[in-house]
């Protein structure tokens, strides 16, 4: 008989979540969802499959990372690569009727094909919010503060939020380089985090030494409000000044929210080539080399669903968040009642009483157990209801 190689195998990048990890995820998810609800956001669900032509192309995720399939009519479908585009679709079609600010939240698995190193997850859970219809800086401040509040709630003390403003970068590039095409070349270097390439390219451009220096100085605009002052000095256009003013207002608001300590400006932050339109951010935690979440303002997305509206939001990756928090003992929640036949009624009664108190109780017949020692390891405590009443042992 042929060897069945893939007996335990899953498609590339897909993972099982076993009880131990599930418990950790559940706790993190619950804590965060509770906090998000307290801020007045309402959770929604959207389908796993969406049309490629709408949600697929509107999403921030690169085309080659989409899982695509065909439906019976031959339409191309995608497994949702993020939740922002589906929520924009729903908001544009149903919810955003009176054009007032809308606060929506989600907790869902998203799918992104991986090309490198087979084991990297291609499906992972995200939890996040979208604040649609509010173009003010206070909306940006609220989502960043909410994100920080969530991280604190789940016990992450040391994290860092890098904040930038793509409007500032674009304004500076446009005013020095003159056209969008050249700006885009330079923006790509920042997106790819290739500062060496950025410097080399700037030096190769036919610009005055003053303009070259302005472009090079962009790389060192980092830190707090002093970086904003420096940024304002670098740019003359109205758009550039306005972007810098927005960041100043943001920092002030974040201070009021009490989260400014974790926030650092980085004017050269470009986390996507074209998706974001204003303030954008990435969040990092110790022990994890990758961003645990990101977000920003995407004022152009809803227009793709024929309903222009400003919007901002963030998404946190639950798997990386759990890595950052580290292993916590979430086991030992469950109690076990081992009973023999003659004590069934008593066992059921006890289990019902405990369950009514909200405890998790397993009811197990003694003869179903092969190895009592190994079995008892699994539970926080075991109650034995064996033999005739009055002779039970603990």
């Amino acid at each position: 008989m042929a060897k069945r190689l893939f007996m335990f195998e899953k498609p590339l990048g897909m993972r099982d979540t076993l009880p131990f990890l599930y418990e950790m995820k559940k706790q993190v998810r619950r804590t965060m969802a509770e906090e998000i609800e307290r801020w007045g956001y309402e959770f929604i669900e959207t389908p796993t499959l969406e049309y490629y032509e709408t949600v697929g192309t509107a999403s921030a995720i690169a085309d080659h990372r989409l899982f695509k399939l065909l439906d019976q009519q031959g339409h191309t479908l995608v497994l949702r690569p993020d939740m922002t585009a589906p929520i924009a679709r729903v908001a544009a079609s149903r919810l955003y009727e009176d054009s007032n600010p809308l606060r929506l939240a989600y907790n869902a698995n998203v799918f992104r094909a991986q090309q490198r190193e087979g084991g990297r997850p291609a499906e992972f859970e995200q939890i996040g919010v979208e604040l649609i219809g509010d173009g003010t800086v206070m909306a940006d401040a609220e989502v960043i503060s909410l994100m920080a509040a969530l991280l604190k709630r789940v016990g992450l003390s040391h994290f860092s939020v890098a904040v930038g403003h793509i409007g500032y970068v674009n304004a500076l590039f446009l005013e020095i380089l003159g056209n969008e095409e050249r700006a885009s070349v330079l923006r790509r270097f920042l997106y790819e985090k290739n500062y060496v390439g950025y410097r080399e390219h700037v030096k190769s451009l036919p610009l005055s030494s003053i303009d070259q220096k302005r472009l090079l100085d962009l790389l060192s605009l980092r830190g707090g409000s002093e970086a904003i002052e420096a940024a304002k000095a670098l740019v003359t256009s109205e758009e550039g000044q306005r972007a810098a003013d927005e960041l100043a207002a943001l920092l002030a608001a974040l201070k009021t929210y009490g989260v400014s300590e974790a926030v650092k400006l980085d004017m050269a932050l470009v986390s996507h080539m074209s998706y974001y339109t204003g303030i954008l951010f990435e969040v990092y935690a110790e022990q994890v080399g990758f961003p645990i979440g990101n977000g920003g303002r995407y004022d152009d997305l809803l227009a793709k669903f024929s309903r222009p509206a400003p919007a901002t939001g963030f998404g946190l990756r639950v798997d990386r968040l759990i890595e950052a928090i580290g292993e916590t003992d979430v086991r030992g929640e469950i109690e076990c009642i081992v009973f023999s036949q003659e004590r069934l009624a008593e066992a059921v009664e006890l289990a019902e009483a405990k369950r009514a108190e909200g405890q998790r109780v397993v009811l197990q017949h003694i003869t179903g157990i092969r190895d009592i020692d190994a079995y008892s390891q699994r539970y926080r405590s075991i109650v034995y209801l064996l033999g005739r009443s009055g002779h039970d042992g603990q």
Partner: protein
Amino acid sequence: MLTIAMPKGRIFEEAVELLRRADYMLPPEFEESRKLVIDVAEENMRFILAKPMDVVTYVEHGVADLGIAGKDVLMEEERNVYELLDLQISRCHLAVAGLPGVKMNGIAPRVATKYPNVASTYFREQGEQVEIIRLNGSIELAPLIGLADRIVDIVSTGRTLKENGLVELERIADVTSRLIVNPASYRLNGEVIERLVDRLAAVIPQP
């Protein structure tokens, strides 16, 4: 403590020399050590010695905060790391080479390389369809024994090519070593890393 992934071999000594010029107190026996992890307590630094191709992996995953890697490796691996400084050391270039006077096989053109991603991108840009054969070393052997018509490899002095009767045909890109940083570490240890970058930048030889 900062962890720095260093490439074993060619680049290592030049990188160590650069760090010393930037006044980092590395112990004298640093180069001779066969250890893979070397702690330098005085500088609050840990060095890990890795295969050049793996340095980017260590840094991307964040087990090393920083790394020193050739541009050839960065081009090949396309990892999500910050490329902060051109250290201007270990200068060489990526090139296409082959036997003199031998044309590409018209039926089944083959290219042998340690850099399949770079080679494939390069030939696609030229509009040439070639089969890429990945080798792990002694690339020069491939044209000699008829495995491939061309090779893509790094060339520094050109001696290896010459000794094997090969000639350089096209230059793909210049290569020097770069200082790379993990994105999370760049955010969380910003100031320490900035100091290191400044100290190194001050002693980098100008091209």
